[in-house]
Each structure stands twice: as C-alpha cells, then as structure tokens.
C-alpha cells in the first residue's frame, strides 16, 4: 500500500483502516481523520466543490509532511488520501490515518499531518454555492494551527 494517494475516486474508510492495522500487533493505537464537503462554510450554502491541485508537487509535499511526522513521533504506518476534481455535498475529501504503539503519538501525528496539509500542500477549493462559484479563502486559524508544532 502506498502511503500517499491523490485521486479522483472515493475511498472506503473501513478498508483503509483494515489495511493500516493488518498484520501489525505492535500498533495499539490508530487515529483517523476524514474531511468531507459540508453544507455551510462561512455562512455560505455550499452545494459542491471543485478541487484543483498541482500534480507532482501535491504528492511530493504530502510525502514530505508524512516524513516529518515520522521523524517527530514513533509512527508504525501512515496513510494519506486526498481527492481532486468535482465533489458533491457530503462527499469525502481527505483521509489521514496513523498507527503507533502510543495513543498520544497517533493523535499528534494525524493532527500534525492535517495542519501541515492545510497550509503547505498545493490544493485549492472552488465552492459551488447558491450565489455562484468562488475560490475558498485561506484561514488564519489554519496558519495558527500549523504554527503550534
């Protein structure tokens, strides 16, 4: 299993979890994050997203973020999936899974990967809303989250 996937197709959380723990009895702790297209964003009614990315750099930046997580925490396995292209309301966008012997390490690694992905990986969301399309603005809170680490 590759650690990183950038893909248009959906993913199966149960299958990803099963693959992450398969045959590994040292990883007592597994933490997962799933991000989905939500109905409201900054007060706008969202009906869908288009996710643009920078092919090549996307995979490279995710691999670099995963490598940094592994250097900081005793991680057994990591899996990052990010979808691109057209996504409808409620659809899954991103999956991050991390396993470790230690609970705190698994939580920290998964949250670190998400915080870095949000501020360093070249993805851009264009929202479809009731009043037309618009590019999503980056949030200061995401920068602040990433600066914690």
């Amino acid at each position: 299993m590759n650690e990183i996937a950038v893909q248009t197709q959906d993913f199966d959380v149960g299958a990803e979890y099963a693959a992450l723990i398969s045959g590994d009895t040292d990883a007592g702790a597994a933490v997962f994050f799933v991000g989905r297209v939500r109905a409201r964003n900054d007060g706008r009614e969202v009906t869908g997203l288009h996710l643009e990315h920078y092919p090549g750099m996307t995979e490279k930046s995710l691999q670099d973020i995963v490598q940094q997580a592994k250097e900081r925490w005793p991680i057994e396995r990591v899996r990052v999936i990010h979808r691109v292209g057209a996504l409808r309301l409620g659809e899954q966008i991103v999956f991050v899974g991390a396993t470790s012997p230690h609970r705190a390490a698994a939580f920290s690694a998964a949250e670190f990967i998400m915080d870095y992905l949000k501020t360093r990986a070249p993805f851009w969301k264009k929202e479809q809303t009731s009043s037309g399309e618009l590019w999503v603005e980056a949030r200061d809170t995401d920068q602040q989250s990433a600066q914690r680490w």
Partner: protein
Amino acid sequence: MITVLFFAQLRDQLGCESVSVNAEGIRNLAELRAHLLEEHPDWQPYLGLESLLLAVNQTLVKLDHVVNSGDEVAFMPPVTGG
C-alpha cells in the same frame, strides 16, 4: 528558459496558466517576478501579493530563492485543501 506556472484564482486573475521566461539576467524569484511585472504591469495587483506561495521545482521556497534555466517555478495562492 524558466517555466512559470500559475494556479487557482491567480491563474484566473492573470488569465494565464503558464509562461516561459528567458533565464538570462534573472538570479532569483524576486527578479523573476519583477521581470514578469515589467512585461505585464496589469498583473501587479495579483502577482504582487505578499500572501502568494512560491515553489521552485515543486518545493516551497522564499522570494530570495535562486532560479536557473530549466527550473519549474510556481506562483500560488494560499492553499485551501483538506
């Protein structure tokens, strides 16, 4: 030559996805941007933004990063994935 790529709303704002620039006399990203703004003064409100992310050969770098012929340079709005 240097390949320069623009993404997302920046690409829409410039009405341009990529340009090739002669590397001669251009030492770093700041000089590359100055060169582009000389040729396209109307790009200033967008390409002049301090918030843009910069990449050379698909790695995030700062404005003082060296560029050479053959490099792939990207100017990008702040990212919004995840």
